[in-house]
Structures are given as structure tokens and as C-alpha cells.
């Protein structure tokens, strides 16, 4: 994997002097993605499905082609299992709002969830009086599998993150699937931090639903993906209703369209689908295994450097259980101040609660600094970050 060559593909790094380590929030875009969207606007743009004219036919084909590329990328059974929404949050809201859950039904989620996989369930607790169980982390700051096994008993739904957006841990989805099978639970996976960085195979992982966002994997912001097993999606009620999602409408009733259109009301983000297609083609060319390996090397360098400086960081200590991000805190300096200092040094990181308030409360920290890498980051980026932290600590004499 030639990182220098990859970096050349990202125009922003030629134009701006910045070390970009905020990839868990969103990633930069390669010229291939930008060009494909421009080409679509210049040569093929039209609304999809509605027209008989040549442009509408082309746009429709490109849109469907995008779904086929996504299906192939995660090894789905069919492109009809790929629903386009706005983002991961909307995807999980779609499932939470359409699953036939009733009073007393048990939903299990975890303390390490991003709010996108927490609030939809918390709201159902109020609206439908579902029983919500929240699995804790253990002393190693990994998901407590014993607690999960206990709480998952007779659960209708287990909703868990692929990779924690704060801890950086990769959850053991194989074991979680086993527990879900024992209880005949539906397994919903928030893949926002996992799919962009790890080879994802929904057949092997046997997930029932998987949600992720294009903007965290080189694609446009505003398009998210919900994968669902065809037979489950068929069973679900419709979510948003209106244009595009029907087969027939009469004065007093309507018949929903086939999958995947049943869940895509209104004109979708067509150029978003085009950009997502190009992004996946880019990632596939580089190779997801190569990306994973490269990122793990960078993360190892980072955690080793943090340990050397006695900087507290969170999540699993086992490097093979970690993905592309590390959250940390320097004693005596608030996360925002660390991030602001790094900004002066042209290093972009994130600080705050990262949409994971329950986890920060659990860790008993007011906030954290998060550094996250992607395929275009290199060792120099990590060394620059570690050097800047060292300098900050030295300057403040703490």
C-alpha cells in the first residue's frame, strides 16, 4: 500500500497544510469521487425512475449500479437489501420505528453506543414501553460479554456497535451473533466506525441489519446505507411515505413498492449514490485488508507513544482488538484545550463527548480527545501528534 501515492489523490492535502486525524467524524474525498460526481452532473444528471427519456434511464442505471457495488462490498445477498437513507442515525431510526416491537419486548444495547444507536431505543422505552437493557463494559474497557449473555435472555433485538467511536474497540460480532441466535434475537449492527475500516461480510457475520455512512468512507455526506436481510425488510412496515415508495395508490389505500424502493420515499440523494459508488471502488482498489493493516500499525505507534508519555487512553489494550481511533486525556488539561492547541499546530483532532454521553459518564471523564486515522495518514502524522502533545505537556510543566 503506497500511502504517498494515495495522499496525492486527495486535493485538500495539496491545498491545505493540515494533519487530518479527525477521520472518525468524517473523511476527506479523493479526486476520483469528486470527478465522478462532476461527471454525473455534467453528463447524466436527471431524476431517477420517473422518466422515459435517456437521461432518466442513465441516472436510474447509475443509481442501481451504486447499490450493486455496495451490496458486493459488504457481500450482501442482493442489491435489493441496500436501502439508501441520509446517514447511520436515520438508518437505525428506520429500523427502530418499523420493527414490530410491543410493550415489554426486550431490546439490548450497550453503554458504548454512539447516540445514533442509543436514542432510537431510549425513545421506544418511553413510547412503546419496551424493556431496554444496557450492557456494561468490563475492567479491560471491552464489552462485558457475560453481562451481554445475561441481559440478552429472550431479547427481541440486540443493537450493538461494530467499533466503538470512543474506545476504538472492535466488538466480537461472532460471539454476539451466537448469543443472539440462542435467544432468537434480531442483530442490528451500527457499522459507522467499522465498515469504512474493516473487511465486512454480512453473510459471514450473519447480521440482520447493518447501518453505515458514506461520508466516513471517502464518500459524500448526506447518504447513509441500511443493509437488511431481504426477508426481514419484506416484513417491516414502511417508514416514510409519499413519492417513489409505492406500487399503487387509491383514494383510501396504498400498496408499497418492492424492495428497496419501499423504504426510499421522495427523490433520493442521487449524486450521493454516485459518489458512494466511486468511494467504494477506490477503497476496493486499495484493498480493505491493506487499509486495516496500515491503520493498525499507525494505532500501535500512537498508543505506544501515549503510553510512553503516560497519557491516559481508553479502550482495549489488545492492539488486535482495536480499530482506527484512540481517545485520550492529558491530566490537568481539558480535551477542548488540547484540541485547540493541536489546531495551532495544524493537527485536526476531535474533542468532547463524541455523541457518547453515557460512556463518558461511565468512564467518569468530562470529555476526551480523539485521534482517528484513515488510509491517507502516515507515520509522520502520528509522530507530529505525539510530538505536539509532548511539547504541550512540557510547556505547561505538568
Amino acid at each position: 500500500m503506497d500511502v504517498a501515492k494515495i495522499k496525492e489523490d486527495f486535493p485538500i492535502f495539496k491545498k491545505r497544510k493540515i494533519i487530518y486525524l479527525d477521520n472518525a467524524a468524517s473523511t476527506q474525498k479523493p479526486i476520483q469521487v469528486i470527478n465522478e460526481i462532476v461527471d454525473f452532473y455534467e453528463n447524466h444528471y436527471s431524476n431517477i425512475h420517473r422518466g422515459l427519456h435517456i437521461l432518466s434511464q442513465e441516472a436510474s442505471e447509475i443509481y442501481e449500479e451504486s447499490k450493486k457495488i455496495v451490496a458486493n462490498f459488504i457481500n450482501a445477498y442482493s442489491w435489493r437489501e441496500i436501502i439508501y437513507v441520509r446517514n447511520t442515525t436515520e438508518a437505525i431510526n428506520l429500523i427502530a420505528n418499523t420493527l414490530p416491537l410491543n410493550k415489554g419486548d426486550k431490546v439490548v444495547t450497550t453503554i458504548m453506543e454512539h447516540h445514533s444507536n442509543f436514542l432510537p431505543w431510549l425513545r421506544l422505552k418511553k413510547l412503546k414501553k419496551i424493556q431496554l437493557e444496557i450492557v456494561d463494559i468490563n475492567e479491560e474497557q471491552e464489552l462485558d460479554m457475560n453481562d451481554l449473555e445475561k441481559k440478552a435472555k429472550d431479547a427481541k433485538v440486540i443493537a450493538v456497535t461494530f467499533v466503538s467511536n470512543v474506545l476504538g474497540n472492535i466488538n466480537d460480532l461472532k460471539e454476539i451473533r451466537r448469543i443472539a441466535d440462542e435467544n432468537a434475537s434480531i442483530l442490528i449492527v451500527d457499522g459507522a466506525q467499522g465498515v469504512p475500516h474493516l473487511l465486512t461480510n454480512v453473510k459471514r457475520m450473519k447480521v440482520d441489519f447493518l447501518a453505515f455512512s458514506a461520508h466516513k468512507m471517502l464518500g459524500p455526506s448526506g447518504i447513509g446505507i441500511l443493509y437488511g436481510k431481504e426477508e426481514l425488510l419484506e416484513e417491516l412496515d414502511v417508514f416514510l411515505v409519499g413519492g417513489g415508495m409505492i406500487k399503487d395508490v387509491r383514494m383510501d389505500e396504498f400498496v408499497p413498492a418492492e424492495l428497496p424502493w419501499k423504504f426510499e420515499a421522495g427523490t433520493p440523494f442521487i449524486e450521493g449514490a454516485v459518489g458512494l459508488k466511486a468511494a467504494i471502488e477506490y477503497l476496493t482498489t486499495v484493498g480493505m485488508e491493506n487499509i486495516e493493516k496500515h491503520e493498525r500499525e499507525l494505532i500501535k505507534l500512537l498508543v505506544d507513544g501515549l503510553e510512553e508519555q503516560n497519557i491516559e487512553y481508553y479502550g482495549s489494550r489488545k492492539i488486535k482488538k482495536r480499530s482506527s481511533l484512540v481517545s485520550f486525556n492529558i491530566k490537568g488539561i481539558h480535551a477542548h484545550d488540547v484540541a485547540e492547541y493541536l489546531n495551532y499546530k495544524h493537527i485536526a483532532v476531535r474533542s468532547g463527548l463524541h455523541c457518547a454521553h453515557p460512556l463518558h459518564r461511565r468512564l467518569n471523564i468530562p470529555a476526551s480527545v480523539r485521534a482517528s486515522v484513515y488510509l491517507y495518514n502516515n507515520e509522520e502524522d502520528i509522530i507530529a501528534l505525539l510530538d505536539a502533545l509532548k511539547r504541550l505537556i512540557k510547556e505547561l510543566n505538568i
Partner: protein
Amino acid sequence: MDLIKILKALKLIKKHKLKDANVVLYGSNPYHCGDNITLYLKIENGIIKDASFEGTGCNILMYATSKFIEHIKGKNVKEILELSDREFLKEIDLADISKSRLQCALLPLKTFKEKLPRI
């Protein structure tokens, strides 16, 4: 704004509760940081006789609040209510603070303006 200077200045800041305070104001920036402060004020005949603060949060907030406390002591309540954001930032040497940190620096003044009971 010299961040290092501010961070160093923090070591000298003393947070405490004012025992004879007759007005206590709580302010927070809950949206993505959870930072919060409590202002303790002793106000007599419209004059701020004494003031102190407690709180947790980023160092910009702590710095701005301690400067705010320093600034308001002995002043007329009305005068502080009329203080503009820009004047306050200039007063505490944070006129060039980045946009994303504005809410931290302005929280003490905002708390004072919004939470002070109108008499």
C-alpha cells in the same frame, strides 16, 4: 490569544464558594461539552460587593470566568448587564478567540445576563 499563557494562568485561579453570597447563578454549555459554572454573588443596593465561582470544564471557560469575577467586583449590576460580548472579550484579552470557543469564553457573562433575577 496565547493559549499557553492562559493554561499557565489557570494554576493561579482559585475556585471557591462565597459564604455570604445572596445570589447564586448556574450556567452550562450542555450541547457537546457539558461544561458548567456556578457564580456566587453578594449584591447590595445594585453593587456587586463580592463574587466567586466554582465549576468544571475547559480551561478557556475557567479562565474567562475567573477574569469575569475579577472584573465585576465592586461594579454596578446595571453596568455588567450592559457589557457587550465584544467588550468583555477585549477586557479579558480574548478578543481573537476562535469561533468554536466563543461559547466557552462567553458563558460567565451569558449566565450573569440571563440568569440574574430582574429586580
